[in-house]
């Protein structure tokens, strides 16, 4: 219901103005008299930054962390509903525009619920306190004689009650209390309960609006033809050859390629395919996956890297070990492949610009559009639609740059839609990485030395180069301005090898000496953040290598882990739970098990994968997972996210990789960049550890460990250790 809310809200708030605009030939969306995007609702009384209540009693909550499938809207509604004692299903969720009251708006790092757990509940509790005081004043009773029930403040003694809507204005006029007592867990009615998603209903009726679904009278559709190789430039193109095609209205160059504008998406796309165009070779490197792999291998042989962790003397310990292992792992580039191809719709008017898109970072979108279109930021209104998947891709605003450039040229409402080929070929890819592990084991199986060197690029130079190159300096300025204070928070995660090291430098296993080091190697691929980021690679390599140690020690892989995690009770609890639920050690006939346990974003997940192998074919039959994410605000959404994260990781484990050849991406669409499908999806069972701790994220932690669990099961089945993704037995 709440998913529709935004539309209904737009409809109601702007209805009169829109009707006027429509009859006068104006625009239906973003009509001139509309207030600042979706930052307020007419007549709504603001009770803190997130909550507004209308006179007719609607409770609206702004989801400043966007809904991209991870369940943020349901989580927000649950936290607010809990403190207001209001059924979360009755709360209407809205994506805000860019709004100072939310600071730097960016959704990622699996922190939406973790970061709002206290502030949002406090804000709701303060709203409730003000509603109660307003009611006490009105009824002439003391506040502690009042209770709240289903959107009303009730005075049980007299049987009188007042609706939230009747009280909202008076409540908003009261000073916000400084301190407030939150509900204690034993008072929770909604938190911790299985509850339906608030955005499910519109999503099963085709009514949920994604960026791609924006429709404005007079809107035209754009497609971009880009050089297939990053750094190459458009040399010449023959606009006349396609300008005669039905529906095509404009053909012109923008910073990233050639834009084709037409009356329909398909007409633009057809002309893009037909456009005669040549590209000039750029100066930059031409990455090639075979060479990247070779170079990583060389670096692992020759460089010891910069140590991020250095405890004890690894070389000494290795020398005196009973057994020594020295192995290498490699992971390829991956694309995000969100189901909704990137898109952006910009509607320019004389006094305002409306930008519609599904984005993880609306602040950057606003600043970029303002910059390119020469408007002030205050005149640019970003409308965040539902995201048809994000996974880190929708943090990057390149599609806004392109769309704004097309609008600058045409001064018309434009919807730019990327093709799947654009999406696969022009991503900010998960980096390919190389890893060398050396370890020693004592006669009793203790790990005497753990030495992990990894080769990976940093995310910043790659982004910086694009910023300076393809998108022009405005992009950089825009992004930095938009990031403002928030950048200070974001930058450390983006800089240097930090992200490549997450999960590696803090690997949890007890060892006599530990060294974890990184070698920076940038092959010139545009890289970015991909669901679980550095963890997505390190979950595979660390948890596979531990498995190798277990087998070398002649120990059961789960027992071996348990023996070296005594300082990590949450890992131990997850292992114990998954051991029990998966029937560890007793797989179904013809099946083999592998285990992994891995912490990311404050959440620990243990996976047991049960696989069968026929010839070279690996089939994952069943996955059992145990998760400790602190208190589960909605256990069903926790399970859904671990299920989804696991399947996401399985695609990378089993199905696909992005390959560079002479600078261009070989894969283009789902026929050669294949996704896990229904007939390959395992049965997944997720079990949640009971916890009183504050919630940690669940959007990403399902992904990192599963590739290792599968590889470890394949080893159990075949005795073959697969050290490269995607896992291939015929290699």
């Amino acid at each position: 219901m709440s998913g529709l809310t935004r539309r209904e809200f737009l409809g109601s708030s702007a209805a009169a103005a829109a009707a006027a605009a429509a009859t006068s030939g104006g625009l239906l969306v973003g009509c001139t008299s509309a207030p600042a995007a979706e930052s307020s609702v007419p007549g709504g009384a603001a009770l803190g930054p997130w909550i507004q209540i209308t006179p007719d009693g609607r409770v609206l909550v702004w989801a400043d962390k966007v809904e991209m499938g991870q369940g943020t809207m349901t989580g927000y509604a649950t936290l607010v509903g809990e403190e207001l004692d209001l059924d979360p299903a009755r709360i209407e969720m809205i994506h805000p525009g860019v709004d100072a009251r939310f600071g730097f708006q960016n959704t990622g790092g699996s922190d939406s619920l973790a970061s709002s757990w206290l502030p949002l509940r406090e804000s709701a509790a303060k709203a409730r306190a003000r509603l109660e005081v307003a009611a006490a004043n009105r009824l002439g009773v003391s506040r502690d004689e009042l209770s709240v029930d289903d959107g009303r403040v009730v005075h049980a003694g007299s049987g009188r009650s007042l609706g939230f809507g009747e009280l909202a204005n008076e409540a908003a006029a009261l000073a916000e209390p400084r301190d407030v007592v939150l509900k204690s867990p034993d008072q929770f009615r909604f938190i911790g309960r299985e509850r339906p998603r608030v955005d499910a209903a519109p999503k099963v009726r085709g009514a949920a609006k994604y960026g791609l679904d924006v429709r404005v009278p007079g809107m035209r559709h754009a497609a971009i033809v880009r050089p297939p190789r990053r750094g190459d430039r458009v040399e010449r193109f023959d606009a006349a050859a396609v300008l005669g095609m039905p529906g095509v209205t404009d053909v012109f160059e923008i910073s990233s390629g050639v834009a084709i504008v037409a009356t329909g998406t398909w007409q633009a796309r057809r002309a893009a395919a037909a456009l005669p165009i040549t590209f000039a070779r750029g100066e930059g490197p031409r990455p090639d996956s075979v060479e990247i792999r070779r170079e990583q291998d060389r670096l692992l042989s020759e460089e010891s890297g910069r140590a991020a962790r250095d405890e004890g003397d690894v070389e000494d310990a290795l020398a005196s070990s009973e057994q020594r292992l020295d192995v290498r792992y490699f992971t390829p580039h991956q694309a995000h492949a969100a189901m909704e191809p990137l898109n952006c719709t910009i509607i320019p008017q004389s006094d305002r610009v409306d930008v519609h898109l599904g984005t993880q970072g609306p602040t950057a979108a606003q600043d970029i559009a303002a910059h390119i279109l020469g408007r002030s930021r205050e005149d640019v209104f970003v409308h965040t639609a539902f995201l048809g998947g994000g996974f880190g891709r929708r943090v990057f605003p390149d599609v806004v740059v392109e769309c704004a450039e097309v609008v600058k040229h045409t001064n018309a409402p434009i919807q730019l839609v990327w093709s799947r080929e654009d999406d696969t070929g022009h991503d900010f890819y998960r980096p390919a990485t190389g890893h060398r592990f050396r370890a020693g084991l004592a006669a009793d199986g203790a790990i005497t030395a753990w030495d992990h060197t990894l080769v990976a690029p940093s995310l910043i130079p790659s982004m910086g180069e694009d910023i300076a190159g393809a998108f022009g300096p405005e992009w950089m300025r825009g992004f930095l301005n938009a990031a403002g204070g928030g950048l200070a928070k974001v930058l450390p995660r983006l800089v240097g090898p930090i992200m490549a090291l997450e999960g590696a430098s803090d690997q949890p296993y007890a060892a006599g000496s530990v060294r974890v080091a990184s070698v920076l190697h940038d092959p010139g691929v545009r890289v970015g953040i991909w669901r679980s980021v550095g963890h997505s690679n390190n979950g595979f390599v660390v948890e596979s290598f531990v498995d190798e140690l277990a087998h070398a020690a002649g120990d059961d892989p789960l027992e071996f882990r348990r023996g070296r995690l005594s300082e990590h009770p949450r890992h131990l609890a997850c292992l114990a739970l998954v051991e029990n639920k998966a029937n560890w050690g007793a797989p179904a006939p013809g099946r083999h098990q592998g285990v992994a346990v891995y912490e990311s974003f404050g959440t620990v997940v243990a996976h047991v994968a049960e696989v069968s192998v026929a010839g070279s074919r690996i089939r994952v039959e069943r996955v059992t997972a145990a998760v400790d994410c602190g208190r589960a605000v909605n256990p069903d959404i926790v399970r859904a996210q671990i299920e989804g994260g696991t399947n996401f990781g399985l695609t990378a484990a089993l199905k696909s990789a992005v390959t560079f050849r002479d600078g261009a991406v070989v894969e283009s669409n789902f026929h050669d960049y294949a996704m896990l499908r229904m007939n390959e999806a395992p049965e997944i069972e997720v079990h949640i550890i009971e916890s009183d701790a504050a919630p940690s994220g669940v959007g990403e932690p399902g992904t990192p460990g599963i590739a290792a669990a599968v590889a470890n099961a394949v080893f159990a089945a075949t005795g073959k250790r697969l050290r490269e993704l995607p896992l291939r037995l015929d290699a």
Partner: protein
Amino acid sequence: MTIAFKLNGEAVSLDVEPELPLLWAIRDELGLTGTKFGCGIGQCGACTVQLDGRPVRGCLTPISSAEGRAVRTIEGLDPNGRHALQRAWVELSVPQCGYCQSGQLMSAASLLGANPEPSDLDIDAAMSGNICRCGTYGRIRAAIHRAAEIVREEEGVS
């Protein structure tokens, strides 16, 4: 050329190029946006609609082939959005990002239409053309079984 067909039970006619894919006719010409674009080459199923009750990929189906036939999109699956599949989908919280789900539901509706009690293998066969990048496959499978059960229960009652 003018092409006349039924869209969710209503007669419509369009004056468009005959090769225009049904997907874009529905989205760009007729303004129904529940049907999604995912790949454009028949690989993902996001654009699935029914043509005379059978599932087709809207991105590969020229509008000319809809002439005189009945097209059903997610918006027309049930007048009140209360098809057994839609109810089961909500009950089991199937959607995550939700983008693929219109196509999933139209494929599932075609399956249930032809086979009211599908086995897991039937589901694999009917649903493997629909990609869900959010990985909701297990729930889709469970929801199809649940919808079949809802239909049985309601038929049993009536």
